[in-house]
């Protein structure tokens, strides 16, 4: 009998059907990958297994854990199950821990609750567990608070909480989506070794077929609340019987069709750019320390060039991007854009530079004012023009950039919440295009998007480069994106650029440690498929 057996599970919210007859099994000692895009019902499946469905949900079918129907259990019985027999790891490590409690207390809490151990014993056990997940108490004492840890370290704490009592089933819902590729590989390794050494089952939920391919014994593909395909990982990945599975695989390895263009005049030139931040005082009359976020960075870009800036989180990529966009000034060094040193110009003199370079951010949800129409949002950069267009002219311009990104002019009268993530990212690109820029700085522009949408947006960038001669600086930790769309790559580590060269060369034969680490950690579906 399987450890977890979900049979014909249907979950409805009013008239909306989140899950429609889902069946899947997780056996002891088995890793089952559940793959799907947003809205496919992955998270609902996980919550149903924990008996944590939202109150408004109406569930039908069976969720059998060890023969007991989770959907029929009372709250008290569920409480003895959760945390003891089933542990759960969540997507967002930055918010999954209580900010006002120490990590020791948070790990020990579940132990005390389920076993009735004394606080001292539980802390002892918590210490051992934290050590096991890679947070040795000598360096990470129990009285640390979550804000004193990085994202990867926090995710280790969440795993320690979930695994503290040797649960028989571990559910990990996108456990690495918010982490950079190197951390992702470490966390996946940790999860794998934890369940292997204890013979537990693992339900690994991800939108990324590449992540699941390297881990899972069996794969379940979900789409719009239904199981599209399920089977042994090897078989699913090799045969790809279902067109949707093939579509997912193709989308995640998608490369836009593009030929490198002859490069134009120099556009952007950074010379010895350094940015220091003051760190808080630790003693009353002590000196403030400095933290060097960007350290002596020099590089240049030409018109029409597609360049990737890759590196792990915290390596200084975003700080560098802010300085290029003149949103922050370097402590020393110069940034020349179109021949002008923009790091030395006063704010009022930056209009031309701001017009000629625009930005697209990662989060298509957070980067729009929700109370404005798309027309207002897309037209906003027009104030940078010297001649202010009339309302009609502005609308005409907006309609033309919207057409350029593949959206209808009728979209202009709607509000951001009425669009999907991919459409919003198109709107963000339209907003960037309206001043006819020469350079777009894109900070992780596709990492919040589903793989199929990601492929479309990458195609769009390739098209803009081809048709408009737009240069793009892609900031990303995702090497697929770098490989798919850029000609040249800069590898950044601890504030410095440690390697630079044609994208294919660097990614195939990385020389620096940082680049090698990134390449080794990146989940690679193509390689995984070849291996099988």
């Amino acid at each position: 009998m399987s450890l977890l057996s979900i049979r014909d599970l249907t979950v409805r919210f009013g008239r909306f059907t989140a899950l429609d007859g889902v069946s899947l099994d997780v056996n002891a000692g088995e890793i089952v990958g559940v793959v799907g895009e947003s809205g496919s019902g992955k998270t609902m499946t996980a919550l149903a297994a924990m008996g944590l469905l939202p109150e408004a949900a109406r569930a039908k079918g069976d969720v059998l854990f060890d023969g007991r129907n989770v959907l029929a259990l009372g709250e008290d019985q569920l409480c003895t199950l959760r945390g003891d027999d089933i542990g759960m790891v969540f997507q967002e490590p930055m918010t999954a821990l209580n900010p006002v409690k120490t990590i020791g207390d948070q790990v020990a809490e579940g132990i005390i609750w389920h076993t009735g151990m004394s606080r001292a014993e539980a802390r002892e056990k918590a210490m051992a567990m934290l050590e096991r997940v890679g947070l040795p108490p000598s360096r990470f004492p129990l009285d640390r608070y979550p804000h004193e840890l990085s994202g990867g370290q926090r995710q280790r704490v969440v795993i320690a909480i979930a695994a503290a009592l040797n649960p028989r089933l571990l559910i990990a819902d996108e456990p690495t989506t918010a982490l950079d590729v190197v951390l992702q590989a470490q966390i996946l390794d940790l999860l794998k070794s934890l369940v292997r050494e204890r013979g537990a089952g693992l339900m690994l939920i991800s939108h990324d077929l590449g992540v699941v391919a390297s881990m899972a014994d069996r794969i379940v593909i979900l789409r719009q609340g239904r199981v599209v395909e399920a089977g042994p990982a090897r078989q699913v990945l090799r045969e790809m019987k279902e067109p949707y599975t093939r579509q997912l695989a193709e989308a995640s390895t998608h490369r836009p069709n593009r030929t490198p263009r002859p490069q134009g005049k120099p556009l952007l030139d950074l010379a010895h750019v350094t940015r220091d931040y003051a760190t808080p005082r630790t003693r009353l009359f002590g000196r403030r320390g400095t933290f060097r976020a960007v350290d002596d960075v020099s590089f240049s870009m030409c018109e029409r060039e597609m360049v990737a800036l890759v590196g792990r989180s915290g390596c200084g990529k975003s700080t560098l991007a802010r300085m290029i966009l003149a949103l922050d000034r370097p402590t020393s060094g110069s940034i020349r854009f179109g021949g002008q040193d923009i790091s030395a110009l006063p704010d009022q003199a930056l209009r031309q530079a701001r017009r000629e370079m625009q930005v697209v951010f990662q989060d298509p949800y957070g980067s729009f004012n929700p109370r404005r129409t798309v027309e207002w949002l897309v037209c906003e950069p027009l104030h940078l023009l010297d001649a202010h267009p009339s309302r009609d002219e502005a609308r005409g311009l907006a309609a033309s950039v919207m057409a350029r990104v593949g959206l209808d002019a009728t979209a202009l009268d709607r509000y951001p919440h009425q669009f999907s993530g991919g459409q919003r990212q198109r709107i963000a690109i339209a907003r960037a295009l309206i001043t006819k820029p020469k350079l777009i700085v894109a900070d992780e522009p596709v990492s919040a998007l589903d793989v199929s949408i990601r492929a479309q947006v990458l195609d769009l960038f390739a098209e803009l480069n081809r048709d408009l001669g737009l240069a793009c600086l892609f900031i990303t930790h995702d090497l697929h994106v770098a490989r798919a769309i850029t000609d040249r790559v800069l590898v950044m580590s601890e504030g410095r650029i440690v390697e630079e060269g044609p994208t294919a060369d660097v990614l195939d034969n990385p020389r620096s440690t940082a680049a090698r680490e990134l390449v080794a950690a990146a989940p690679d579906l193509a390689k995984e498929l070849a291996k099988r």
Partner: protein
Amino acid sequence: MAVWLASRLAMTAATVLVASLVVFGVMEVLPGDPARLMLGMNATQDAVAALRTQMGLDLPLPVRYWTWITGFLTGDLGRSYTYGVPVAELVAERLAVSLPLALMALALSTLIALPVGLFAASRHGKTGDVAMMGLAQIGVAVPNFWFAIILVWLLVLLPFQAQAWVAQGGLWGALATVLSPVFAFFQWLKLPAGGFPGWEAGSVAALKALILPAIALALPQAAILSRVTRSALLEVLGEDYIRTARAKGLPRNLVIRRHALRNALIPVITILGLQFSFLIAGTIIIENVFYLPGLGRLVFQAITQRDLIVVQSVTMLLVMGVIVVNLLTDVLYAIADPRLRRAA
């Protein structure tokens, strides 16, 4: 933490200095010459001038500021023009009424608001929540002096009237008979409808005199605070770490107590700190309604009688009180939230 506290203390001292300059400056530009007021309209120019010299009013501005502020900081608040006694004495006497009143009101409003907010949040969208928040809506809308009048009527006047109704019989009589144990209890309490016997009359009598004003002050505050508590809790209950706690197997009420409450306290502390200044403003009205010899009434009378030295000193004291409460609020924040303990 020490660095943080030192920087907060330095900022507090600077705020007090700026506030003292503003209070002094405002009193300077107000019309009305205290010497003329004290001597009356018929006094000669010479007499007024002599008094001005005696009071030090003809000294240059910086000197007078310096004399006032050094006196203030050493406890010499000057001498009241109208009462003819040291202001410090007057204030100390009045504080003995106002401070317990404000503290009682603050404690009452917190004691009412936290459980009500907790109750409403844990029954979000259900009848209990709707009923509590409906009551809170009324509490926010109704001014405290109206509550004061209703309280006096309900607890002091109505029990007497009820006896008459019982004697009359009829529908009202029947109702009054049913409720008579309640009214008897109210009568047994013997709460005064106003006035203050002084602490020398015994602490029970003094506290009895303060309880109705404190309730009247506390109710509107409690209404606001319970709404804040409820919405803060509801917001926290939607956080990811609440799901983490539930996934540990903790039952819902334990999750609220251990994980939600302390995180929800931060906005509650903010409002509590802000309410202190409203409480002080509220005491001026409530002390007048209940005829209590408190600081509020002192200021009110001093303003109408242009006893500027009293107004100036009491204002400064109240300003300092508010600043100190703000400092306490900041310290409470840091205790509640470890992320705020870093140096500013």
